[in-house]
């Protein structure tokens, strides 16, 4: 499917999505946290989109907002798409988990939780993956400060 056809189809499911192809090689969708799980389920299960391969799940700190970027590909149609979800709540950022849709998300979401402190609802085993349980703070956030171990320019 072309990006245009994808956009037409996906926007018919949920009207409030934001689409953009600017400054990226993929079609980007920004979704509200409440609609994330519904959108992801449909992207995977709809036979026309069939995004069955979640190849990258990254946390990003945009300064004001925290969010997660999902890179998706369909192994049958070979089209790709990027889904973004953002929140301004830096105290308690929470999204729904997608690890019941793609198993790979279980580890990736734990990594995001470890480094960005983003919580995932309904995740079966959400705890730190790389760092120790008693680690203070979330190192990949932009406002993280560690005066001993970090070289700050």
């Amino acid at each position, binding site marked *: 499917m072309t990006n245009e056809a994808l956009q037409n189809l996906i926007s018919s499911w949920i009207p409030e999505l934001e689409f953009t192809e600017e400054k990226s090689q993929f079609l980007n969708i920004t979704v509200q946290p409440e609609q994330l799980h519904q959108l992801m389920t449909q992207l995977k299960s709809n036979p026309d989109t069939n995004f069955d*391969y979640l190849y*990258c799940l990254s946390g990003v700190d945009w300064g004001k907002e925290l969010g997660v970027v999902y*890179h998706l590909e369909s*192994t049958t149609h070979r089209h790709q798409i990027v889904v973004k979800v953002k929140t301004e709540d830096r105290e308690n950022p929470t999204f729904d988990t997608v690890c019941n849709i793609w198993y*790979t998300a279980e580890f990736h979401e734990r990594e995001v939780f470890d480094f960005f402190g983003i919580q995932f609802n309904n995740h079966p085993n959400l705890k730190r993956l790389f760092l120790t349980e008693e680690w203070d703070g979330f*190192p990949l956030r932009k406002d993280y400060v560690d005066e001993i171990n970090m070289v700050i320019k």
Partner: protein
Amino acid sequence: MDTTITNNFKTEEYQINMGPQHPATHGVLRLLLTIDGEIIKRVEPDLGYIHRSIEKMCERDSYQQIVHLTDRMDYLSSHINNEAVCLTVENALQLEIPERVKVIRTIIAELTRIASHTLWWGVMGMDVGALTTYFYGFRDREMINDIFEETCGARLTMNYNIPGGLMFDIHPNFVKRTKEFIAHFKTKLPEYDLLLSNNVIFRKRMEGIGILTKEDAISFGASGPVGRASGYSCDVRKHHSYSAYDKVKFNEVLKTEGDTYARYQVRVLEMWESLSIIEQLIDNIPEGDFFAKTNAVIKLPEGEFYQKVETARGELGVYIVSTGTKNPYRMKFRSPGFSNLSLLNHIAVGGKIGDLVATMATLDLVIPDIDR
């Protein structure tokens, strides 16, 4: 078995550590095993023993410096890791790369793949108790390392790629020695089959354990030989061709069994394909520059860039968020080992501890690739 006997020998679950210093984990990885007798009930990997926070360091470094850090992820695919970052930067700058660079990169990437697979093959045999394979594997890998040493100046962490091209031109001996290696390896690769692949004991040990279905492989994000052994066509070189892979003919090795032996076979057969790719290119290296001019300070345009490449272990993705400065705002590496490790629990449960060692060996984990 008679039920009364079973009841008399009632067992209970308990937990045991495998690693962090266990020879079969090939690095500092701790597996927390929940077992009932010999039967595995749950495998929980504990990571982070050698995490160096490369992604955070990248936010501080220039794009030329980042290339050096990627050597230290999957150190057996260091050239391909370098290539991934360089390709991302070059695509973002829309830089035209000389054909010569593309061909040399492809040849060295395939040599890297063979070097990685020979090491894996040697260690794989050793994991299941065949020490001889280790010496066979290292003997052949040594020849490739010598070629690298001559051209790149290093044997493991090559640093041969820079954004825009290569650090130096190939050594005058490169073509000759590569051809010597191909001739040598073509006589040795059948020995691999004689020694291990067709060995009855080895096959009985490997077949039918650690089975991964195609659906699960896709869902777990398996890539590389792990995915292809389950019949999942996931070769990045085929589906998202880069460098000179569109100019060569090669087969994507696919197996449908999805067990440990299928993963083993895929890697051995892939070495033949890599040899064929190098043979097609080695006599046709175009003349010309070995780099395209870039600014001394590379600033990527504002935006997001993603590039995937096929390392010896599978799909490596590089995701850069740039704000237009000389450092990336956010850099993420999607490493193949990370996703391949995540499916270990799924395929090991119900098997024996001994089988876990064989299963893990065919996942070909490199721990620094997981602990980036």
